[in-house]
């Protein structure tokens, strides 16, 4: 996950453990907020999400410290009608991958909050909980709009609404 930890190499393992532990605690703390939506993550599931994030960051040549993005995604998607305890961990895992991929594809032009808002809106209102539609249609269009300098990067909404 971290290709250049801020420490000398012999202590790298220790630093990685500290980071992972820190992120795990932050994610598990989210359970306090999501319980009202009948959503909880076990320690194992939280660990798996951290591993997913590690792989996603590696695949996109990005670095992140702490559990900030996972927490924010949980916060954004906790009230989605398409997420239940049954698919909570697996959906979050796919959303994490989607998020980092399109963070790069939108050239870092869209803030974390805006990107998550757009993902949530599309996921709930036009994709009806389908990650495939979210990735292959909605987010691709968004990335295209950003790359080609469209004034309204969300211009796809009207097209699909029609």
């Amino acid at each position, binding site marked *: 996950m971290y290709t250049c930890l*801020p420490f*000398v190499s012999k202590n790298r393992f220790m630093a990685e453990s*500290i980071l992972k532990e820190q992120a795990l605690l932050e994610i598990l703390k989210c359970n306090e907020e999501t319980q009202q939506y009948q959503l909880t993550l076990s320690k194992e599931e939280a660990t798996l999400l951290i591993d997913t994030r590690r792989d996603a960051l590696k695949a996109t040549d*990005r*670095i*992140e410290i702490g559990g900030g*993005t996972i927490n924010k995604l949980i916060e954004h998607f906790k009230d989605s009608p398409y997420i239940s305890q049954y698919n909570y961990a697996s959906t979050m895992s796919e959303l994490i991958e989607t998020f980092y991929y399109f963070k790069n594809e939108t050239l870092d032009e869209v803030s*974390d909050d805006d990107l998550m808002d757009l993902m949530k809106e599309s996921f709930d209102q036009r994709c009806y909980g389908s990650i495939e539609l979210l990735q292959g249609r909605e987010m691709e269009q968004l990335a295209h709009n950003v790359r080609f300098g469209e004034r309204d990067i969300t211009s796809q909404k009207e097209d699909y609404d029609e």
Partner: protein
Amino acid sequence: MLQMNRGKMELTKEKQICIEGKHEGHLFEIVLSEVIEKGYLKESDMERIQIEMIQLWKQQIEAFNNGRSYSITEANAKRLLESMYFTLGFRFQALEDLDDSITLLKEKSVGELFEEGQSLIKQQFERLKERYEELKLSLIETDNIAYNDTYKQGLEPFFKNYKLEFESQECPSNIDYPLSNDKMEKVGIDYMTDYIEKSLLEHSLCLKFKEEIEAILEGFHKGYRDLLVNIFELVLMNAIGRLILKKDLSSLYLQVSEIEEIEKVLEILPTPLLNSRLMDIGMEVLNQLGLTSEKIKGYTAQTIRKYVPRIELALEDEMLETIFIAQKQEKEANIRYIAGKRLEDEAFKQLTERIRECDKVEDKINWMREKVGHIDDLRDVLEADCIFDEEYQRVYQSLEDMELALLLNSVRIDKNDVTEIEVDREWFKYLKKYLEQMTVERQNAIKDIAYRTVQF
């Protein structure tokens, strides 16, 4: 006692840290690595420092992203980390003692050390701005492009674009002009400080001869405008050359013949003696010019040490003129020789016939004096089978030094090398013989006139 200077530590054996030659931007990493390896920090301190480092990195990433994003591209994250290391290292550079470093690591958080590092860099930046203003006032007039581009435009971006918060290890500038002793491994404000301080040292010597800089550069190479050449070195070497010849430092002017004399002095010295002799003379140059600071002495010594192998090689290859430059001095600039009209073919034929008919060499000389107004005609007469054997000697005796120099020039292949000449012609053999009979001083004077003469 442990000693730690800026960028270089000299420690007692058990606590020795060797950072010489390592990337100075990573001083903090090196200090930390050594302190941990040698067990000067407890496990708990190590863990705390690691966590604080990570927290600081996280804060820096968030600040860099302006709160818009938790993640960052790997390239930007690495740059931020390097900047963190540089700033923290700057805090440790200011220490004189490694024990202080250990105490600091134990007593202060990484965040505090980072803030203190930033504060020290800010102070350094302000000091450097003042030094840059001083440098701008001490520039010399030259057409050298690298010099002008660097000192008149290239350093300015640093003072406008240096980003302490996220890119303290960067040095946004366009530096082409090569210093005599450039520490390229330095980074960020350290590099700029080093460059400006050394530039000031170099200028303190160059300014003593500011009227002669262009002449010495011209002497170094006709295409000097486009070359990456260090002016300080040329000035220093010629000043040393002058003292070797026991001349004063009112000028840097050296004649070609004088470089040959320098060669005779230096070629007999073995390496250690050559080194110490040049060093002594170099220091004497500074002394005579009133440049007595330890900094300029140390810097000049560095340049001389660098030059010793080059001088040895130049002596070996008989190319000392690449080290000591024979330049055209303003007050003894080019001698402009405006030639008279050349003889028409018919007039030339009549003249050579008349000379040939003369029994006395004095009559021949009179005819030549009366009719010849161009050096090429004189040379043609000498080659026209109308002057014979010992008569050449008499003809040459009748000529002035200027005329003899022009004759030399008329056969010289390379203007920079008066000894490489066509030697087959009879008139020239007698000329050479005639010159050899002269005193060395007069020979040198004629060679010098030949060197400086430009024909129009």
